[in-house]
């Protein structure tokens, strides 16, 4: 009935020299032994509490025995709690692992180090209620609710005067670590799976990813530099960047400076992916969009962000020794930043640049087909930039552009489809009849690109068969966003590219544009200064456009 069995009492009796204890006595003693044990334990716990500990030690038991005026137990002197081991095969039998030590060993052993003396050190546990992130304080919890993210940063700011230099240990929770590993794996291996799409969505939506942002920014920078010729991975990385940027819960600003170089690399690198087989233009376009969105979002916070970016890009653009791919990236980046940037930075340099670009585009002067193709690309992007700038200007006059937006496309399409065999006169007269739509088409970059071939439709080209193909790829890649009408136009262009009078066409188109300009001028909507700037610009702009048609 007592947890102390009477056998124990008998064994104890024998050990202190009472060989034959009567069972009755043992039975009577057992419960009392248990009671005394409990009493001593209770007192020992009191002593433990007063020594401000939560683990019972032999000292406490000694103190408790002392309280009861009993002799302490010897042989357990240790200020640390005793370590009990479970006896094998018994559920609740424990023993102290008391190793026998050879005397010689003890004597021969070198003297142990003297224990260090007690000392007191002081630190700030909190400053006005906020814990500074110093090594003396426990690491701040890794998972922080997103709204707290900012607050915490402020907290760190508060602590700056105290201790800034010490490294902050950052603990990442297991779940986040797994998440990060999984994302990394997806980016590098399986970027084309639907799972990756879900991952991107999660990156863009999930709260609580904030602790991972430094890791992601590092990962992206690292992988971009390593995988410059692996286009799918670069694309995946850029998409991750885009998702992270769009996540409303992430406070990404402090990490922008780490991410920007990788994005700009994707934009203006000399070689991205395999030059021939991969569509590296697409990633440049994508990167330019990301850059532009960053500038829009954080431009007001980091006022020198855009200026630094444009400086980098304009350097790439104006350096003739740089490859055409780089020029293309720079132009794309600049034009993505908005028409005003284009007007201020590209247009003034356009004429000189065109002189450089011209020979590259000529079949007879540039024998390397790849180079020529690149030049055409650059040309296209310039056209786009200039066009959008122009469009922006013209948008200021809503009277001219507000008329039907859809109608012109339709009519245009009709023209392209129905008037395929018609000669250029008819097409152009038709276009002049619809003045506003023509203007829009001429001005809108996507419009220009598709318009020219479609009006060219009937015109015959004397150039080689490779050019139409080039036209096609040019159009389809450039007009990602355009409607199917454009594509049919392009197709129509391929079908009918042969047998149209190039020369007449050139005149017609320039007529169209010139007329448009004149109208603007006549209407007095365009300022004369603007005309001065654009007058030349637009001529150089139109001329290549015609040449483009010409080929």
């Amino acid at each position, binding site marked *: 009935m007592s947890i102390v069995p009477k056998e124990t009492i008998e064994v104890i009796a024998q050990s202190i020299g009472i060989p034959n204890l009567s069972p009755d006595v043992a039975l009577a003693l057992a419960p*009392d032994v248990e009671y005394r044990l409990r009493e001593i334990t209770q007192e020992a716990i*009191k002593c433990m509490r007063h*020594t401000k500990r939560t683990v019972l030690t032999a000292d406490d038991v000694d*103190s408790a025995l002392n309280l009861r005026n009993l002799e302490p137990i010897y042989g357990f002197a240790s200020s640390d709690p005793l370590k009990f081991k479970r006896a094998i095969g018994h559920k609740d039998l424990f023993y102290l692992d008391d190793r026998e030590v050879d005397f010689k060993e003890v004597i021969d052993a070198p003297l142990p180090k003297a*224990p260090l003396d*007690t*000392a007191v*050190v*002081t630190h700030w546990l909190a*400053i006005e209620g906020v814990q500074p992130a110093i090594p003396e304080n426990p690491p701040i919890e890794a998972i922080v609710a997103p709204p707290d993210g900012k607050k915490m940063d402020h907290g760190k700011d508060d602590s700056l005067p105290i201790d800034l230099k010490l490294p902050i240990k950052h603990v990442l929770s297991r779940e986040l670590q797994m998440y990060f590993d999984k994302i990394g794996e997806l980016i590098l291996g399986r970027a084309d799976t639907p799972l990756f799409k879900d991952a991107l969505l999660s990156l863009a939506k999930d709260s609580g990813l904030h602790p991972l942002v430094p890791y992601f920014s590092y990962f992206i920078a690292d992988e971009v530099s390593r995988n410059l010729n692996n286009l799918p991975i670069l694309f995946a990385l850029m998409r991750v960047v885009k998702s992270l940027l769009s996540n409303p819960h992430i406070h990404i600003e402090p990490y922008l400076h780490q991410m920007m170089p990788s994005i700009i690399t994707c934009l203006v690198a000399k070689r991205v992916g395999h030059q021939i087989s991969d569509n590296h233009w697409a990633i440049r376009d994508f990167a330019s969009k990301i850059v532009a969105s960053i500038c829009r979002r954080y431009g007001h916070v980091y006022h020198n962000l855009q200026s630094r970016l444009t400086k980098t890009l304009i350097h790439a653009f104006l350096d003739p020794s740089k490859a055409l791919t780089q020029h293309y990236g720079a132009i794309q980046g600049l034009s993505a930043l908005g028409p005003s940037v284009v007007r201020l930075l590209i247009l003034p340099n356009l004429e000189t640049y065109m002189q450089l670009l011209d020979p590259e585009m000529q079949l007879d002067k540039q024998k390397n087909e790849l180079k020529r193709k690149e030049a055409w690309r650059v040309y296209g992007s310039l056209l786009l930039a200039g066009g959008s700038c122009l469009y922006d200007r013209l948008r200021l006059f809503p009277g001219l552009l507000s008329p039907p937006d859809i109608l012109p496309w339709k009519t245009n399409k009709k023209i392209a489809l129905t008037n395929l065999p018609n000669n250029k006169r008819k097409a152009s007269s038709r276009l002049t009849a619809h003045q506003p739509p023509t203007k829009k088409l001429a001005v809108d970059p996507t419009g220009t690109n598709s318009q020219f071939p479609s009006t060219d439709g009937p015109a015959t080209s004397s150039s080689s068969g490779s050019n139409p193909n080039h036209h096609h790829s040019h159009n389809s890649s450039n007009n990602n966003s355009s409607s199917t009408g454009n594509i049919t136009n392009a197709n129509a262009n391929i079908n009918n590219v042969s047998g149209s009078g190039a020369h007449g066409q050139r005149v017609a188109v320039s007529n169209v544009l010139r007329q448009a300009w004149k109208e603007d001028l006549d209407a007095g909507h365009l300022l004369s200064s603007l005309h001065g700037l654009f007058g030349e610009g637009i001529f150089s702009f139109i001329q290549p456009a015609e040449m483009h048609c010409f080929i």
Partner: protein
Amino acid sequence: MEEEVEKAVFVYLRKKGFRLTEIALQEEQTRLSSDASSLSRSESDAAKYYDGYGKLRSWAYNSLDSYRHELLRVLYPVFIHCFMDLVAQGHMQEARTFFQTFREDHEMMHLRDLQKLEGILSPSHLEEMELARLWRQNKVKIRLCQYSYELLVQYLHKTQSLAMLGVINEHINFEVYPGQPASMSDDSEAVSLIGTSQDLAREINQKELHWGLLEDSVEERMEKTLSESDKTEVDGNKEADTEDNNKKKTDGNKHSTAVNNKKKKDKVVGATGKTIRSESSMVSVPPRVKPELTLPQFPPEVEQSILEDLRNRVQLNSLALPSVSFYTFLNTHNGLNCSTISHDGSLVAGGFSDSSVKIWDMAKIGQPGRASNPQGENGSMQGMHSLASDEAKRPYSLLQGHSGPVYSVSFSPFADFLLSSSSDNTIRLWSTRLNANLVSYKGHNFPVWDAQFSPMGHYFATASHDRTARLWSVERIQPLRVMAGHLSDVDCVQWHPNCNYIATGSSDKTVRLWDVQTGNCARLFIGHRSMVLSLAISPDGRFMASGDEDGTIMLWDLSTGRSVSPIIGHSSCVWTLAFSCEGTLLASGSADCMVKLWDITSSMKALKTDDSKSGPASRLRLLKALPTKSTPVYTLRFSRRNLLFAAGALSAGS
């Protein structure tokens, strides 16, 4: 008498020849007597308790939802008494099985009591163990609503379970109240309370208590001067203030950098805080009382420093949290039992298991020159200590004199004296200037768990394992008062700010407030579920906080003796509690390596609004939890300027 009648009846029947009747009578008699003997008590009693309790239990658990929690309250005392009755009647085996069978039900609420009672194995233990004695000698009072009570009575009558009826009649007093059953959470006055002690508490708590602050204290005088100067010349005062501030800034530069930093911080808020304080003090001024003890006068320069501190006090509230400076004891080898910090945070003392007391002067630690060239400074000490050269190497002053573990240390208000209490039954007074022992106070018969200087100095109170608290004056070696009444160890002691009362917390799970003049118990606070480890009284003298072994913190209203808000504040022992200087915040430090800050004002407001009805107690609001790096928090102390100091020993285990 009865036998005579019986005899007479038999004689009468024989005489008349009623043979059959006689035989029938005899038969009936034998049957009756055999009945009585066959009910051999040893067997059936135990079974009766077991069955009776089992049935009562299942009935209570199956009763109506809204009354169940009230009926379940009845189970625990019945359980305890059934068990003790069984023990008292000598059915050890049955008692043990009974206890083990039903123990689980009560483990959640009463684990510690159960652990103690489990040890009762013979009737003599019942006599010996204080807890068992308490239970058996007193009645439990249980509050039941009208209907619950009727249900219970009906059940007991219907089932005819006499054992249960007996236990309930004998040991439980029902306090029946009309209306609906009280809500589940209102458990504070539920079961574990013992009837008479509850009555005692009620009786004691009806006494008048002067909880106000002292008349003519430095604070009061300062407020007076403030308000006067406010009235007379507002502008002039402001100028004086700025001058003051400037002066202080220059003063501050003289101090060591660490202290200087914080002072500047304090100062910035101080200016604004002051005006708010003077306004708020207008709203609710605590009543003033006369001191019952003859109190010492502060010397003028000390008063000056207090006034300066008061002027520079940071206003703390739920929005403005304090800065916490943490003193970590390193390499204590599990030997640090207690620590204390002086009011200005410049001195830190620790009491160790190896009987030593060590004092660190934090201002000197910052100065590297001191370690190399201490002779000039400590020249006077060299004569006293033969180990002077050894002394020089140490960054602290070592006080040796006790012959057992030191359980508490306490600085006098101006840190010129230090008290230490030890397991060698003595309290020693040390001078921090001379680094020497001045007096050894003997009087307690068992280890002295706690010793605290009064807020004004000169007097101190001690708490001991001998179940008494004692009041001493530094200049007498005999105690002035002995406060006896606790039923177990007195574990902690704390002074009321007006020096007229001391509060003690005990292992009997109660907190008592004693009048220092009469030595009588002025308040009894019942509600903790385990040993009370720490106490703090708010600076306005109205509220008291107590922390226990389980991590519960309770806030008490001293004037009514009621609990304001119990909270599970920590996951382990609450070693220390401290109120901020204006009483808006409560800081608690615990073995779970946390300093927590609680908002007092919100619960005060709630208290004021529903003062009349004793509705569900409002809870303290946790403002901030500050985890330390595996350092249990032993001591907390707000400086007069409301900087919070904390101390603890880095535990090597982790």
